[in-house]
């Protein structure tokens, strides 16, 4: 792939992921616990992984956390480290599911599970494991549910994009 083309594609995907993260921030949560989110910004990251490669997905994922923290003023605070742990674990789980040759919805599920488990570990380590364990059942259920939803959205988008590119 030409270098210019690569830069344009990864830039658009990073911008999309930032916009989705912002939309998710201002949308009211309809879940029993408002701390949980659908994970719309995971769609561009999955698209990056399938259109480009895992390295680019890592760049988009960590770049998203970095830029969101700079935009909304929580760079290098506690919440920033929670988010970066989520991003890193999500990428590790995507790589793991690539190794196991999972389908797109299952990769999305693994990525959302990794995201939540990364945050779970950091929160358990810093705020006490009884607090983190209280959220474990919700983490698992919501990872499966929203991971699959995001996975099916990404799959249908990929089918459309693949023809155009």
């Amino acid at each position, binding site marked *: 792939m030409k270098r210019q083309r690569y830069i344009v594609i990864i830039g658009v995907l990073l911008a999309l992921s930032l916009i989705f993260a912002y939309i998710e921030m201002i949308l009211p949560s309809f879940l029993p*616990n408002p701390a949980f989110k659908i994970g719309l910004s995971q769609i561009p990251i999955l698209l990056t992984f399938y259109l480009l490669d895992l390295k680019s997905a890592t760049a988009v994922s960590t770049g998203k956390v970095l830029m969101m923290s700079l935009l909304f003023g929580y760079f290098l605070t506690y919440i920033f480290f929670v988010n970066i742990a989520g991003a890193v674990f999500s990428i590790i789980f995507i790589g793991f599911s690539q190794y196991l040759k*999972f389908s797109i919805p*299952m990769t999305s599920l693994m990525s959302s599970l990794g995201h939540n488990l990364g945050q779970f570990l950091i929160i358990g380590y810093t705020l006490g494991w*009884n607090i983190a364990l*209280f959220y474990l059942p919700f983490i698992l259920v919501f990872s499966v549910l929203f991971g699959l939803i995001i996975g099916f959205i990404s799959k249908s988008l990929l089918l459309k994009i693949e023809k155009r590119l």
Partner: protein
Amino acid sequence: MNIPKITFIKINKREIIIIIALLILAFASYFIINNKGPGAKAQIEVAQNLYGTYDLSKDQDIIIKDSKGQIIMTAKISNGTIRVITSTCRDKICIKEGAIDLSGQTIVCLPNKVVITVINDNNQIDGVLK
């Protein structure tokens, strides 16, 4: 364009088994961890240090300060429930979580590292999970 060929594998048996296993794990952990009962006291922790334990039957406003002495949060106890009414955090998730009154329920404010837990009189939760 030389995009690597996308393999659209359908969800297969192996993946459905993993999904079902995860859901079973979720429901099992829910029934093991959530031992909800009527709560008597609210325990407030700031950055893993016990800030105070407050009786839920007595209506009061609690001002929570961080280690530097700055006010970060106000909690209100009324009608046997506790909720957060003001907070300095960005997304105000702790306020949106609303009032809690059953033992084991928590309000967590991540930016301020504040954890509010409703407990029984006999501190059962600490005994089981710590």
